[in-house]
C-alpha cells in the first residue's frame, strides 16, 4: 500500500506533480524560516552561555608582587560607536591563567586583537585608533572569546611594573568561566519564544493547508479506490504517504534553503552583532525534528482531514454539515484579553506581571478560534449588502463553511495582531529613550579629564591643534583634581577599571563655564546677557541617560563667576568634531594625554570619552534590537501567512475546477469568478483583521499606559505601521491575484471534461 501511495504521489501526472511541488515549496518556506529562528536562538544561547572572561574579579595587588597569577585591567573603549573590549594584562609567573581565544598571554609590547579589530588596526590611521594600544599586533584572538565576527576585543601585554602603576589594576589568579549575568537575557529568550510561536503557529496552518491541497480531488480518488476494494486503512496509509512525501521533500528543501541563506543570516546581526556562522545552526535535534516531525505533522493533518469526510465507494460525503460557529468561539479571546489585563494590573516597576505573557498567547490563539465566527458574521452582513452574482456566490460559500474560509487567512490575522502591537509600542519606547537635544550634540564628545590648570591648558592647546575639533572646557570651582596633575604621555591603559563609581562631578554649582563657550553649546543653555562666566550644576551632563545629560544647565539665573578661569582645574572637556576621523583622533589624543581619574573599585569599567550621539546610540541599540526581532517575527509571520494563503487559494481553485468550469460553460464571465475568489479571501481577512488590529491596539495601549512614564502621550499608529501592514495586505492580494491566471486556464471551457 505504501508503494501504491508512492506511485500515486510521484507518478500520477503533471497535476499531481504540481500539487506535490506546491506542497513541498510551501512546507520548505516554513521549515527554512523555522530553522532560521531556531538557529538564531541557538546562536543567542551559545553567546549567552559563553564564559564571561571580562567578568573576572581580581584582588587588590599585594605590596610585593606575587610570583603567580597575573595583573589584570579590563576596560572599554569606543571606535565609531562600536565598543572595544580591552584587557591589559601582565603575567606574574609561568602558570598565569590565559584568557580564552589565545594560546598564551601577550608578552609586554605586544597585543592580540580580534579579527575585526585587527582589520581596523591595519586600515585606520594610527592616530585614530592604533596609538591607543602600546606595542604591536602579535596575533588574533579566537572565536572562544568572541560573540561574533564584528566583536572588537584586544589583549595588551605589559610588564608587571608598568601595569601595576596604572590605577585600577587588580591581581587575578583564575579567570571567570561563568556566563555573563545579562539583564536582558531572559527578555530576549522570551522574545525568541514569541518569535518561534509567531512562526510555528502559521506554519502549522500552512502545513495543514498544504496537506489538504486539492483535498476534494484526492478524496474522489480515494472513493474510487474504495469501490475496488480498498479498505479505510489502505486509504489512510495512502493519504499519509502522500502527505509525508510532500512534507519530507519540503523539509529537505527547506533545510537546503536555510543552509544556503545561513551566511547571510549570520551577518544580519539580529541581536546586535553578526554571529559566527558555526554558532548559527539549529542543534542536531532541531534538524532531526524538522526532517521527522514535519512529515509526521503532515500525516496527522492528512488523517485529521480524512476524519472529516466519509469516503464511501460511491463518493465522498461530509460526516456532518459544518455547524455555524457559535458565540462560544469568543470565550478564549475574551479570556486571553482578561488574563493580559490582569497581568498588567500585577505589573510593577520591577517587571511585567506574569499572567500577561500567557494572556498574550491565549489572545493570539483566541483570535484564530474566534476567526470563523467573525467570518460568519461578516459573510452574513456581506450577503445582505452585496449585490451581483459574485457577492452571492462568495457570501454563500463563506456562510456555508466559514471555518475553511478563515483558515486561509488565519496566518495574516496573526501577523496583523503582532504588527499592530509592535507598531504601537515601538515608537512609544523609542520616544521615551530619545532626546530632542541629543541630535544637536550628537557630534560632541564629553570627557572627564580632571586636570590641573596648567595641564588643562596644555590639553586644550593640544586639542586646538587638531583640525576639525572645537574644545569647550568646563572648570572645577573647588580644589585641585585628585589625579593627573600634569599632562603626561601615557604608556599604560587608556582607562581604568573601577572608575564607574567616581565622585559625581559638577554637582551643586561646582562647575564654572565660560559664557562664550556656551554660545557654542546652545542647546545646553545661555548665560544672562553681559556675563563672561557662570557657576552651574552640570551633574546631569555626566549621566548616561540621554534624556538627562542633554538638558540645559545654564540659564539667566545662574550665579556669575568673575574669577580667572585659567586658574581653575579643568574638570571636563566637550569637543565638537566635524567628522568621524576627527572624533577618533580626538579620542586617541584624550586617551593618551588625559587618562581617566582614579577608579572607585575593582572590576568596574569607567566610561570612556564618547559623544552624546554614541551614548544615545547605545540606548537605542537595545530598542532597535528588540524592534528588529519583533519586526522580523512579523515579517516571518507575513511570509508564512502569504504562503498559506497562496496554497489555500490555489487549492480552492483546483477543488472547484468542475463547478467553476461549468459556470463558465454556462456563460458566467471570468471576471465574475475572479471577483468571487477575491471576495472569498477579502471578507474573512477584513473581518478578522479589523478585530485583530483592534484587540492588539487596545491591549498595547493598556500596556503602554501601565508601563510608560506618567504624562507620556498615548501612542498613535504611525506611518511605519501602516506601511508594514499595507505592504503585507497588498502582498496578500497580489498572492491571490497570481492565482487568477490559473483560474482562467483551469476553467477554460475546453477543459470541460472531468475524467
Amino acid at each position, binding site marked *: 500500500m505504501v508503494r501504491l501511495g508512492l*506511485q*500515486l504521489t510521484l507518478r500520477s501526472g503533471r497535476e499531481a506533480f504540481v500539487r506535490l511541488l506546491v506542497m513541498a515549496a510551501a512546507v520548505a518556506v516554513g521549515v527554512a524560516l523555522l530553522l532560521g529562528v531556531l538557529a538564531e536562538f541557538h546562536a543567542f544561547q551559545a553567546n549567552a552561555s559563553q564564559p564571561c572572561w571580562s567578568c573576572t574579579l581580581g584582588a587588590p595587588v599585594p605590596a610585593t608582587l606575587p610570583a603567580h597569577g597575573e595583573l589584570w585591567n579590563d576596560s572599554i573603549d569606543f571606535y565609531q560607536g562600536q565598543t572595544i573590549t580591552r584587557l591589559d594584562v601582565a603575567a606574574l609567573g609561568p602558570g598565569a591563567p590565559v584568557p580564552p581565544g589565545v594560546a598564551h598571554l601577550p608578552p609586554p609590547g605586544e597585543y592580540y586583537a580580534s579579527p575585526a579589530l585587527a582589520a581596523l588596526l591595519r586600515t585606520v590611521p594610527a592616530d585614530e585608533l592604533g596609538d591607543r594600544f602600546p606595542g604591536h599586533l602579535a596575533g588574533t584572538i579566537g572565536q572562544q572569546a568572541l560573540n561574533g565576527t564584528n566583536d572588537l576585543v584586544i589583549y595588551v601585554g605589559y610588564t608587571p611594573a608598568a601595569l601595576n602603576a596604572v590605577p585600577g589594576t587588580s591581581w587575578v589568579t583564575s579567570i571567570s568561566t561563568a556566563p555573563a549575568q545579562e539583564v536582558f537575557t531572559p527578555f530576549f529568550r522570551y522574545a525568541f519564544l514569541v518569535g518561534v510561536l509567531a512562526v510555528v503557529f502559521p506554519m502549522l496552518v500552512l502545513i495543514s493547508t498544504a496537506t489538504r491541497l486539492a483535498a476534494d480531488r484526492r478524496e474522489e*480518488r480515494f472513493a474510487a479506490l474504495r*469501490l475496488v*476494494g*480498498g479498505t*479505510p486503512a489502505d486509504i489512510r496509509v495512502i493519504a499519509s504517504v502522500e502527505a509525508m512525501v510532500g512534507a519530507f521533500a519540503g523539509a529537505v528543501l527547506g533545510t537546503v534553503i536555510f543552509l544556503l541563506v545561513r551566511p547571510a543570516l549570520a551577518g544580519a546581526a539580529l541581536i546586535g552583532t553578526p554571529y559566527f556562522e558555526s554558532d548559527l545552526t539549529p542543534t542536531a535535534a532541531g534538524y532531526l525534528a524538522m526532517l521527522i516531525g514535519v512529515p509526521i505533522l503532515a500525516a496527522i493533518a492528512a488523517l485529521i482531514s480524512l476524519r472529516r469526510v466519509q469516503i464511501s465507494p460511491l463518493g465522498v460525503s461530509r460526516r456532518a454539515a459544518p455547524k455555524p460557529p457559535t458565540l462560544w468561539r469568543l470565550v478564549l479571546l475574551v479570556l486571553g484579553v482578561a488574563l493580559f489585563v490582569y497581568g498588567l494590573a500585577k505589573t510593577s516597576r520591577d517587571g511585567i506581571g506574569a499572567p500577561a505573557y500567557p494572556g498574550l498567547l491565549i489572545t493570539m490563539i483566541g483570535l484564530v478560534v474566534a476567526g470563523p465566527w467573525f467570518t460568519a458574521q461578516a459573510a452574513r452582513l456581506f450577503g445582505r449588502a452585496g449585490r451581483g452574482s459574485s457577492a452571492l456566490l462568495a457570501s454563500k460559500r463563506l456562510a456555508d463553511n466559514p471555518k475553511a474560509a478563515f483558515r486561509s487567512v488565519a496566518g495574516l490575522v496573526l501577523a496583523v495582531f503582532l504588527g499592530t502591537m509592535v507598531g504601537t509600542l515601538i515608537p512609544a519606547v523609542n520616544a521615551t529613550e530619545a532626546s530632542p537635544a541629543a541630535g544637536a550634540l550628537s557630534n560632541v564628545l564629553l570627557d572627564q579629564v580632571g586636570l590641573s590648570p596648567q595641564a588643562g591648558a596644555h590639553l586644550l592647546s593640544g586639542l586646538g591643534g587638531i583640525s576639525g575639533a572645537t574644545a569647550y572646557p568646563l572648570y572645577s570651582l573647588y580644589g585641585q583634581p585628585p589625579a593627573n596633575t600634569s599632562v603626561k604621555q601615557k604608556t599604560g591603559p587608556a582607562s581604568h577599571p573601577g572608575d564607574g563609581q567616581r565622585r559625581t562631578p559638577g554637582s551643586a554649582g561646582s562647575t564654572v563655564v565660560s559664557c562664550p563657550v556656551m554660545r557654542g553649546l546652545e542647546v545646553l543653555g545661555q548665560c544672562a546677557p553681559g556675563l563672561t562666566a557662570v557657576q552651574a550644576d552640570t551633574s546631569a551632563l555626566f549621566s548616561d541617560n540621554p534624556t538627562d545629560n542633554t538638558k540645559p544647565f545654564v540659564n539667566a539665573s545662574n550665579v556669575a563667576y568673575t574669577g580667572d578661569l585659567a586658574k581653575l582645574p579643568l574638570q571636563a572637556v566637550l569637543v565638537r568634531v566635524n567628522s568621524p576621523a576627527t572624533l577618533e583622533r580626538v579620542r586617541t589624543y584624550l586617551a593618551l594625554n588625559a587618562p581617566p581619574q582614579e577608579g572607585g573599585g575593582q572590576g568596574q569599567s569607567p566610561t570612556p570619552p564618547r559623544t552624546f550621539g554614541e551614548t544615545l546610540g547605545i540606548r537605542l541599540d537595545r530598542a532597535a534590537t528588540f524592534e528588529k526581532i519583533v519586526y522580523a517575527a512579523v515579517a516571518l509571520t507575513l511570509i508564512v501567512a502569504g504562503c498559506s494563503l497562496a496554497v489555500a487559494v490555489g487549492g480552492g481553485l483546483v477543488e472547484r475546477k468542475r463547478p467553476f468550469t461549468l459556470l463558465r460553460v454556462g456563460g458566467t464571465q471570468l471576471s465574475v469568478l475572479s471577483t468571487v475568489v477575491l471576495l472569498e479571501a477579502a471578507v474573512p481577512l477584513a473581518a478578522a483583521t479589523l478585530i485583530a488590529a483592534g484587540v492588539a491596539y487596545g491591549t498595547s495601549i493598556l500596556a503602554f499606559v501601565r508601563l510608560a512614564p506618567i504624562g507620556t502621550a498615548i501612542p498613535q499608529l504611525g506611518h511605519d505601521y501602516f506601511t508594514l501592514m499595507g505592504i503585507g495586505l497588498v502582498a496578500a492580494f497580489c498572492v491571490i491575484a497570481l492565482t487568477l491566471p490559473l483560474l482562467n486556464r483551469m476553467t477554460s471551457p475546453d477543459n470541460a471534461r472531468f*475524467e
Partner: protein
Amino acid sequence: MSTPVVMRGCLLEARDIVKSFGQTPALRGASVAVGQGEILAIMGPSGSGKSTLLHCLAGIFQPDRGEGWFDGRRLDTLGEAERTRLRRTAFGFVFQFGQLVPELTAADNVALPLLLNRASRKLAYKTAATWLDRLGLSDKGGRRTGELSGGEAQRVAVARALALAPKVIFADEPTGSLDSLTGEKVMDLMTGLAREQGATVVVVTHDARVASYADRVVMVRDGRVSADLGAATVSGSSAAKAVQLWSASACS
C-alpha cells in the same frame, strides 16, 4: 447478442429491502433474486430506487430492513471490512463515471484491484495487459484514464471489473455517458466476456437497448420491484416495447 446461459441457482438475492436516506425513502421492500451467470437488467424511472437496489445488492449500502444474500451468505449483516473484501475479490463495478483513478494509467487502474488483493505486481500487470488486450486497448495501457475517450475509459472499467474474475459485475448506467454505437460496443464486450467467464451481471439502466442484453429485466417503481418481465429473449426493440407497455400500464 449471445445466447443466454441457463440459470444455475440463486447467487444474489434481495429480500424485502427497505432503505431510506434521511427522511426520504429509496427502497420500500424491494425483492429480487439473480441466478449465477444470469444477466439482470434493473429498469425504472429516475428516483425509483434502482441504483439503491444495486448498491444494496453489492453491499455498498446496508439496508435499513430486509436481507441481502450473496452465495448463501447474509450480506446485510457483514461488517465493513468483510464487505470491502467482497468488493475486492468477488465483485466488479462499471459505473457511468467516477470509478477510475484519473491520475493512474489504464494499466494501473486495471491492476489496482489485484494489487489491493495483494497480488504480485508482475501478475497484476500481466493480467491487466491481458484484459486490456481483450478489450482492444492494448496500445492504451500507458495512457492516463483522463486522456482516454469516454468509450475507452468505460472499456478500461470493464477490463478492471473482469480482471479479478468476479462472480458478479455490477453496472450502473454503464453507457449513460456514451453515444449509442460506443454504448453498444461496451455492452457487447461486457456481457460477452461476462458470459465467457460465467459471471453474473446486474445492470441498472433506463435504456431499453442496454436492457436488451439482459437475460431478465425487472422494473423498479417507488422503491419496489413492481414487475419482472421474465426472460428477455426478445430483441432490443421488443424489450423497449415491453418496457413502454409496462410503463403505460403502471402509469394508468
